[in-house]
């Protein structure tokens, strides 16, 4: 395949010699000039059109990606109010040092971590199991896939509002079911662990099906003869799963872990709408306030844009650290296998 690629490549490299008819030596001067001009235009086209094709993305990225990124860093070094965004006062790193002493920041960071873990880990494990089942020969297999994707089509707003009712303390269906098996009413919206569990449930509900499809796609790409030789070696189904399926899925697992981690770090809509007081505090005692929600509270409720910017960059730095850890772990895993 690479050989074929090389054959196809040279014309492009030589700047569009593709219509390489040798210049007709006997042609009159005018004709030659016209041909030169055409050829120059041709070369210009080949040389610059790739940049023209990628430039819309990069122009938009500069305006709505890179500029905001840098500006947020700049704003995080200032004291700025939402009501007067142009009135900036330089405060150096004070927004960051304040965060270090800010119990609400650490509370939010801890909540983000725990909600992230109890939403991501079960979600990905269930997705893996479901993908394994869907990989069997099934009747009506498309139906299950579409049904599991229905939560993905549901917005955060709609999903969160439904789960608020389902998790209601007095009349919610979940407490009713728990009562039926002899468990007392749980205050899902006000107690720390139940509320974090409930918020995680919304995340799990929305994303398990999507991750299942991604695992399933990766499983279907595993060459069949790997299983056949494992079966010949007498490996049981379970050992085939451990020794063939999981290693082949490693890049996909890494991908889903990274995407889920990014999503968990940014968690915002679910805890905002799950709050019984309709506030940004994430529960009456900040029980399930995430970093995303705390950023919003600082910036849009308390109007401190500078501090909100510092929280935003802290989140980014946390993500970078997680990314590096992820990279190191995956390299270790690769090296050890």
């Amino acid at each position, binding site marked *: 395949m690479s050989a074929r690629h090389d054959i196809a*490549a040279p014309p492009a490299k030589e700047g569009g010699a593709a219509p390489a008819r040798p210049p007709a030596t006997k042609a009159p001067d005018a004709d030659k000039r016209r041909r030169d001009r055409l050829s120059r235009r041709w070369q210009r*086209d080949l040389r610059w059109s790739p940049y023209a094709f990628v430039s819309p993305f990069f122009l938009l990225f500069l305006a709505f990606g890179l500029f905001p990124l840098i500006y947020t860093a700049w*704003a995080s070094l200032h004291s700025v109010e939402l009501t007067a965004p142009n009135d900036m006062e330089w405060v150096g790193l004070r927004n960051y040092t304040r965060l270090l002493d800010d119990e609400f920041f650490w509370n939010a960071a801890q909540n983000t971590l725990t909600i992230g873990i109890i939403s991501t880990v079960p979600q990905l494990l269930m997705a893996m199991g*479901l993908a394994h089942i869907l990989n069997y020969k099934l009747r009506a297999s498309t139906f299950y896939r579409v049904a599991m994707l*229905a939560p993905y089509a549901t917005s955060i707003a709609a999903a969160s509002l439904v789960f608020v009712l389902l998790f209601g303390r007095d009349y919610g269906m979940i407490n009713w079911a728990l009562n039926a098996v002899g468990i007392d009413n749980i205050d899902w919206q006000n107690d720390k662990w139940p509320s974090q569990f409930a918020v995680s449930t919304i995340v799990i509900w929305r994303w398990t099906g999507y991750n299942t499809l991604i695992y399933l*796609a990766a499983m279907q790409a595993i060459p069949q003869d790997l299983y056949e030789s494992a079966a010949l070696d007498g490996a049981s189904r379970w050992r085939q799963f451990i020794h063939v399926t999981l290693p082949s899925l490693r890049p996909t697992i890494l991908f889903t872990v990274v995407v889920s981690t990014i999503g968990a770090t940014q968690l915002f809509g679910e805890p905002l709408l799950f709050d019984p007081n309709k506030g940004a505090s994430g529960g009456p005692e900040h029980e399930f306030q995430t970093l*995303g929600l705390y950023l919003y509270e600082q910036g849009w409720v308390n109007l401190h844009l500078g501090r909100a910017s510092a929280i935003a960059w802290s989140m980014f730095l946390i993500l970078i650290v997680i990314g590096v850890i992820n990279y190191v772990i995956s390299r270790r895993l690769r090296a050890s296998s």
Partner: protein
Amino acid sequence: MTTTLTKPPTPEDAPTKRQGAKAGRAGGHMHAGPIAYIILALFTIGSLFPLVWTAIAASRDNNRLAQTPPPFWFGGGLFDKLELAWDNANMGEAMVNTTLVAGTSAITIVLLSTIAGFAFAKLRFRGRGALLLIVIGTMMVPPQLMIIPLYMVVAELGWTDQLQAVILPSLVNAFGVFFMRQYLVQALPDEVIEAARVDGASSWRVVWHVVFPAARPAMAVLGMLMFVQTWNDFLWPFLVLTQTGSPTVQVAVAGLGRGFTPDQSLIMAGALLGTLPLLIVFAIFGKQIVGGIMQGAVKG
């Protein structure tokens, strides 16, 4: 005629059948047992039940929702409640707005991603690798980092409450570029481009006559994914469209939940209205969307 139809398959059929049986013994192509079906049924119910219950709750009045056991079947008030939610949340305008936002974003993202993806997949130019790395890197940046300056810019331009404030930032979509690149690397043979070149086609003509036709299936999938994503987007529209002028569906739905004694059944009706258009799309194009997500996963 029937004989000619039935005759040819028989000799070819036998070997394929044997192959199928052989593959069936190994790994991923076994038939599922009853336990697998039970687990799938449970998860299917779990996936669909909250949606069905949204409709059940919307069909009941608030008194019924404040009783145990909670309702398990529809009451009679569904359409009245939907109508009320439609009026209260200004849902008609919100639907038009959201369709405009999601449609414009999806179409623009698909077109920009296709030409950029084509350049990254098939054209050679200096800095291609580095630029592609930047594209992938931007997928990592959390949106919270963007919202503060974007909000300032939008406020400065006086765009608060206007739809372009929602549309423009959503156009930066690295996923789309990457998705189209992965697709075109495989789906578009170099020979076809070369043939067009030999015929003297300029790069733009190649894009128009070769790339777009070849990329059409992936463009459709990406368009649907982007439409869903933009339709459901919450954080940014919630921030710039708060002044209740022209919200998107999600902002309108979230707005129904405000107030100290919210009308739960009305909220459910609004949530249902906001979800229904996408569920209909999924019911019709479910197979293609599933295929698209899986395709993107393997190649990504």
